[in-house]
């Protein structure tokens, strides 16, 4: 949070100094940052659950691409018969549903076959990527004849983009799921001590399976929103976002060792990344610096996490 404020101040100072304008007080910039943050935040909210459980989901980026391609196809295919709004609904449902499939396979691999999450989801990264490109015919799938889809993707309600509203609602639901339900509670327990969770009678296999399905669904929603925003589905839609999703979770205070993390922390993390990325564009730095800066931030966050563990490692005896 402090980091986020410092970043915003830095960009604000630049704006005032360079051309006497403002960075954060400009509603256009705010909207852009929010839109920038949508997809990484959706991926990261699923990733938060997975990382808290002690796992990681590397396949999210291409699951998102797969969902975007499928959503675009289904909207195109259904528009003539169903009309625009229903076709959009069908496309959105199909995109989210298809994303659940690789999620389910991830879950079964990790939960039943005990494949380490890193390897299982890395394999799924390749599979989802290939399938997404196959579905897309190796190119981008434009949405045709359905202006309603793009209206949803680019429209605004009192200046707030619809996709931002959808994301905010979804993130609140994820926060509820993590903090107020047994599923969330068990997720923390599994991340801290899987043995204890098992002995307490928690069904680990079923939990992990549902967990990776949930993570896939988050990527699916991100894919659907992507194709609505760009009026097209692209297999590579989420390609650069995997790193961002892990970064957002880690910057948000979760530990890659599992057992800790919060959705609101992840929201802050995703905003930090969006501000860095948008801010770098804003001050006219070459876009490739975005990757470098996010990479550096992720490493620093992990170092901070490890240092904190070292210093507070011992139990505090009373």
């Amino acid at each position, binding site marked *: 949070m402090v980091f986020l404020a410092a970043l915003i101040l830095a960009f604000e100072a630049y704006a005032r100094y360079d051309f006497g304008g403002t960075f954060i007080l400009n509603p256009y910039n705010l909207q852009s940052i929010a839109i920038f943050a949508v997809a990484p935040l959706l991926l990261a909210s699923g990733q938060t659950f997975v990382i808290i459980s002690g796992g990681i989901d590397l396949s999210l980026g291409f699951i998102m691409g797969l969902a975007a391609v499928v959503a675009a196809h289904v909207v195109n295919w259904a528009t003539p018969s169903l009309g625009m709004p229903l076709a959009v609904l069908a496309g959105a449902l199909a995109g989210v549903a298809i994303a659940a499939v690789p999620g389910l396979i991830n879950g079964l691999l990790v939960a039943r076959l005990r494949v380490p999450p890193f390897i299982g989801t890395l394999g799924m990264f390749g599979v989802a990527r290939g399938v997404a490109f196959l579905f897309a015919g190796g190119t981008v799938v434009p949405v045709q004849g359905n202006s309603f889809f793009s209206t949803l993707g680019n429209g605004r309600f009192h200046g707030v983009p619809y996709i931002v509203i959808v994301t905010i609602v979804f993130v609140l639901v994820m926060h509820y799921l993590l*903090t107020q339900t047994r599923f969330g*509670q068990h997720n*923390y*327990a599994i991340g801290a001590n899987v043995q*204890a969770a098992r002995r307490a009678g928690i069904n680990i296999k079923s939990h992990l399976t549902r967990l990776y399905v949930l993570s896939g669904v988050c990527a699916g929603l991100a894919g659907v929103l992507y194709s609505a925003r760009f009026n097209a589905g692209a297999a590579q839609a989420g390609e650069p976002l995997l790193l961002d999703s892990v970064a957002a979770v880690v910057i948000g205070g979760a530990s890659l060792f599992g057992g800790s993390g919060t959705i609101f922390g992840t929201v802050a993390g995703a905003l930090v990344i969006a501000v860095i990325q948008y801010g770098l564009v804003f001050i006219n730095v070459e876009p490739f610096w975005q990757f470098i800066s996010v990479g550096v931030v992720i490493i620093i966050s992990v170092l901070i996490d490890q240092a904190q563990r070292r210093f507070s490692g011992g*139990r*505090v*005896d*009373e």
Partner: protein
Amino acid sequence: MSSAAQETPILEVRNLSKHFGAIQALNGLSMSVHRGEVVALAGDNGAGKTTLIKTISGVFRPSSGAILLNGEPVTFTTPQEARDRGIETIYQDLALADNLSIGANIFLGREPMKRLFGIVPVLDRKAMAEAARATMARLDFHVSRLEAPVSNFSGGQRQAVAIGRAVYWDAQILIMDEPTAALGVPEQRKVIALIHQLKAEGRGVIFISHNLQDIFAVADRIVVLRRGVMAGERRISGTTHDEVVKLMVGGR
């Protein structure tokens, strides 16, 4: 409760055998635990202590023999079934989720829910904290920070949380594997006091220990195993350290 019922052991095992392939881990063992009785289980490594408690707690199924609860034969296919019948096992490595509060640990896997505004189901954290406070007070452990994760507490307090969970869920038989092993001396005393408390509440306790001092401080009886068979059973009041050691190593 009639006096006849009190005489029926709360837990009895009869001729219990367990083999893993050709290895006979437990061979025709019989023992019993009465209400309010603490039975120590001793023996060298590989004597069958762990096999015995895992069979009682439903982790292993016996190859032959019977387990009786209050005189009634039972078979468990999972540890959950044993737990549902009031047999709770407290393992050496404590089986707590370090990042959760005492209450969350007590309720792990069976969290109480309430409804927000009458519709949205949410975890009832207040009920969990209240149960945690009441349970820990009953065990005479007073902790101030009920929302803190249990990683903040000392080894003895964590042991108390594990015992507290069993007590909260009304375990009638507590099986403890080396409950004092990882603790400092003052903490060991507290755990011994806890076992006295459980005894006073009329629960049956089986505990594995290598520490004869602990055994003599708290147990009513000691059962010594050697290579899967009963090497001897003594009332603590009628035996000595030397005799127990001899039973354990086999030099009569």
